[in-house]
């Protein structure tokens, strides 16, 4: 039972973390919320689902990430760049893109939930007394690898330094010769590609539907808020917390309430910590 709970919790956490760090990245760089991030998850899952029969599962994940990178460029152009400094408009524009993507997906893949089967689903290993499918372990492992990769990128690469510079102060970064538009585009591209990985990885564990992105994103939001907006480490911590709590709730309370519990946790946290568990930055000086 315990193994089951931990494995399920980690799967959820890994997923939420991948989606949430994408959101955090975009928010940090542009101060905007990418409401279409959930749809990137969904598109990623479907692209991988479509490509798997032709190229195999693992290459299909790469294809999904590449497709979503292109989607990221489109998103940045349509929903973010026109609305710099008008956060609410950008938010609504990404909601508009969200509607467009869901309906495109329904036109292409239909509205019926589909089973995304991979060969890894059928192999299982025994941990303690329970059998866990390799697919599930793959989800956890890949999430960790991708998150570590992102962490390295943000911390040590040239691009990462630019991300941090723009997050700190876009004007100063621009004055120092950083192309803020390119950095903003890269943040959406990376965020979208990570979401694709989340979709392609978790798709085989659940069913895939064009509506799947919504719930995924709401939970990622909860993780971000718990962790503190714009803070990658906090976000991962928040994702772990939400994933584990949901996994516990699914077993001990009821599946129907798992979302309620995540958001209840969120609301209670905000009552006591109005700026998240890991506050973003100090109060402004008057």
């Amino acid at each position: 039972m315990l193994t089951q709970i931990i494995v399920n919790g980690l799967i959820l956490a890994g997923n939420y973390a991948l989606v949430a760090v994408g959101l955090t990245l975009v928010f940090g760089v542009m101060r905007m919320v990418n409401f279409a991030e959930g749809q990137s998850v969904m598109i990623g899952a479907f692209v991988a689902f479509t490509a798997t029969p032709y190229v195999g599962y693992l290459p299909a994940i790469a294809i999904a990430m590449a497709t979503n990178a292109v989607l990221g460029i489109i998103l940045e152009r349509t929903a973010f760049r026109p609305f710099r400094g008008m956060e609410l408009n950008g938010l609504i524009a990404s909601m508009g893109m969200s509607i467009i993507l869901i309906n495109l997906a329904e036109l292409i893949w239909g509205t019926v939930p589909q089973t995304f089967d991979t060969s890894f689903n059928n192999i299982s290993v025994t941990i303690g007394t329970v059998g866990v499918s390799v697919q599930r372990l793959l989800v956890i492992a890949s999430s960790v690898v991708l998150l570590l990769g992102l962490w390295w990128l943000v911390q040590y690469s040239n691009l990462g330094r630019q991300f941090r510079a723009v997050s700190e102060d876009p004007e100063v970064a621009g004055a120092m010769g950083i192309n803020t538009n390119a950095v903003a585009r890269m943040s959406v591209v990376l965020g979208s590609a990570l979401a694709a990985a989340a979709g392609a990885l978790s798709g085989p564990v659940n069913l895939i539907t064009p509506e799947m992105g919504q719930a995924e994103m709401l939970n990622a939001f909860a993780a971000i808020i718990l962790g503190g907006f714009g803070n990658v480490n906090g976000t991962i911590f928040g994702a772990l917390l939400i994933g584990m709590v949901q996994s516990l709730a699914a077993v001990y309370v009821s599946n129907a309430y798992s979302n309620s519990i995540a958001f209840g946790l969120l609301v209670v946290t905000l009552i006591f910590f109005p700026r998240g568990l890991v506050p973003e930055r100090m109060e402004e000086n008057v």
Partner: protein
Amino acid sequence: MSETSAWILRALFVAVLATLPFLVNGYWLNMAILALIYSLVVYSITVLTGFTGLLSFGQAGFVGLGGYTYGVLSVKGVDPAAAAAWGLLVPTVAGFLLGLPAARLRGHYLAIGTLGFGVLVGQMLNNMVDVTRGPMGLLGIKSFGFDRVTWFYFVLALAVGLCAALEYLDRRTFLGVVLKSVKYDEISASASGIGVFAVKLLAFSASAFLAGSCGVLLAAYMRFLTPDLFISAESFRYLMMSVVGGVGSASGAIISSLILTAVPEALRAFGETNVRLLVYGLMVLFVLWFLPGGIGGLIDRLMTPVRRRITPRPRVAEPAPQPTSLPGRAS
């Protein structure tokens, strides 16, 4: 545009709406009624986000509370008027209570916190099967006993009246200035003696009241409710209506709820639902690209602002200042 022509235009707009029952069939009249009912929840965003600068992703929660309170009570046999009163009271109190923690949250924390509230209400309506009948839907809600045309004029009067009241509040009253001061700079607002927390609580309660009234009307008009009507996606749809209308413009709000309700219906000619919604999404994007201030911004640009002329008033023999007679204050 002069003040007179602006009034003529407003009158014309209302007049055209008022003749709708003679112009369109029952199907479209039904759509118009729904659009006008939805304008109330868009007004609730006008008050909260437009005037006071607080973002909410959970308005559907208040609509749901209002609708289900009315619905459940009316099914239990409570008189519609009393049920409606409860349907207004419950969301207002919920808004006040949510405001207590939410007034301390800023920006996106507030948005996601209210989203949390919305999700919780949505799930509650779904899971409290004993009370709400959950996903099976709540049937047999009693109405006000209006026919469709009466309904139309009733909600038209309500929507237009509220629109006028909100425009007046926003542009002409002291309260409008108080609310907007909080929106633009909380620190200088409090330095000017505005109790920011109290103002935010007021805004939350008023907004929840308006959203709740939308719910009561929906329940009474449709006489059938499902939790699906109040999920988070609905909150986002209301926000979209609000932004397309120009957040903070009540006139924009009513026009945008009419357009964004009518257009998807008109697009039924395209056949498939997906294509319809695709066009809808594109439309929202186009409005944002080309009208960043929304419909309200366009209206504002057409109107020439009123300009006052101030001439110094002769100072009437002011009493010499005495340290003991400083401006009277409650000290």
